[in-house]
């Protein structure tokens, strides 16, 4: 068991260590999230009822954008210094270490968003009970964003203007996650119950976990060919 997961834990540990050493990059993503969320009251007015109504959508769109912002870093450095080619040459299954890299990326950039989001939701006067649903929906949804985004990041690896292209490629794919994520909180607030939305997000997570790493591995092979 531990032998089979060896490459997974090795890559996970390495990437987490690298993320820790480059804390500034991670913090910038988080700061971006906080700043974008705080811009909305200035843009739409600080009327409490309105803020309460738009809070789930605002938090989710901001989470989505800051995920997008950090995605290009997922493979770029390894591609530049040749680590990626070495990893592809190893006999270990590609999908395994690709999942490890995406997991490390999510722990470094997605997890902080999940932790910070409830605090920001309080600025929008979201009621206590909805905070738990928000945390759950982000915890289930942001890994999907990371997995889908990884495919886009691998496809645009090393291209000029790759960042904009990445946004165009993955944003339409992110829409279902946004709908069910923000919808979970809305459904809870309107008294319908968030269970259906959260189950759909969970199902989506399992489906992307099964399929996206395969597409990502294929895209990486094409990128270094």
């Amino acid at each position, binding site marked *: 068991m531990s032998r089979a997961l060896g490459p997974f834990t090795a890559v996970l540990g390495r990437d987490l260590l690298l993320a820790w050493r480059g804390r500034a990059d991670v913090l910038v993503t988080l700061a971006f999230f906080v700043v974008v969320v705080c811009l909305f009251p200035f843009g739409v007015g600080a009327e409490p009822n309105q803020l309460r109504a738009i809070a789930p959508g605002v938090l989710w769109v901001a989470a989505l954008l800051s995920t997008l912002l950090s995605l290009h870093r997922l493979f770029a450095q390894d591609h530049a210094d040749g680590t990626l080619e070495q990893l592809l040459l190893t006999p270990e299954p590609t999908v395994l270490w690709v999942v490890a890299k995406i997991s490390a990326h999510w722990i470094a950039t997605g997890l902080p968003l999940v932790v910070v989001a409830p605090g920001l939701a309080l600025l929008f006067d979201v009621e206590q009970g909805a905070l738990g649903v928000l945390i759950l929906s982000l915890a289930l949804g942001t890994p999907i964003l990371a997995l889908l985004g990884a495919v886009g990041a691998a496809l645009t690896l090393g291209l000029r203007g790759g960042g904009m*292209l990445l946004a*165009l*490629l993955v*944003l*339409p*794919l992110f829409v279902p996650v946004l709908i069910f994520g923000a*919808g979970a909180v809305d459904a809870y607030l309107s008294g319908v119950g968030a269970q259906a939305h959260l189950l759909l997000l969970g199902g989506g997570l399992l489906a992307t976990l099964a399929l996206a790493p395969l597409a990502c591995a294929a895209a990486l092979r094409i990128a270094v060919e």
Partner: protein
Amino acid sequence: MQKPERSKSIFRFAAPQMFYPLAGKLAPWFAGISAVLAAAGLWLGFFVAPTDAVQGDVYRVIYIHVAAAWMSMFVYLVMAFWSFVGLVMNTRLSFIMSQALAPTGAMFCFVALWTGALWGKPTWGAYWVWDARLTSQLLLLFLYLGFMALTRAIEDPRRADKAGAIIALVGAVNVPIIYFSVKWWNTLHQGASVSLNKAPSMATTMLTGMLVMALAAWAYTIAVTLWRVRSLILERERHTDWVAAELNALEGKI
């Protein structure tokens, strides 16, 4: 040089050199069929078909709108199909096919959205409603644009082919997910205010006009795609002798 003409199998046309003349022969036929069908369909739609009892003459936009909307969705599936074939069998022509299809699909997508907006203003009172059909159509347009941007951003054709194929397949898996997500999102919040399904049952001439226009859109797509495939083949194979000979012959004609 090899003589691929000897093979009698239909798969000989998988070679760009063999497909190029075939596409050249077929394209004008499909263009002609498309022109005739479009003329017939528009004549049926705008002069023969009766004025709608509920919507008046505004409804006549459906003769363009419905054909474009059907085609935009179908073309994406065909594009994903050729991408899949290309990835599995590693045939260059399949990738060329899917890249030649994309601009036409995007065009139909845009036409469907644009005519829909023109129809929506007098009928619903708004150019745009966040209805499930409209929203998923808009996202389909973004998927087309993403595919085209990606394949054109990569300079190495082999990498562009395969990267484009992957994003086309990822998109094809996501299209139904997007469709159902926006459908549920819409019905959960607003209730279905407007639905295209509940249109009053149509007169036969209306339906005929619409189907003829749909066939015209098919023929048009095939013709334009074949011409685009020819250009792409010439561009990709420009280092070969037969393309040089072909270009010389073309110059002689001009």
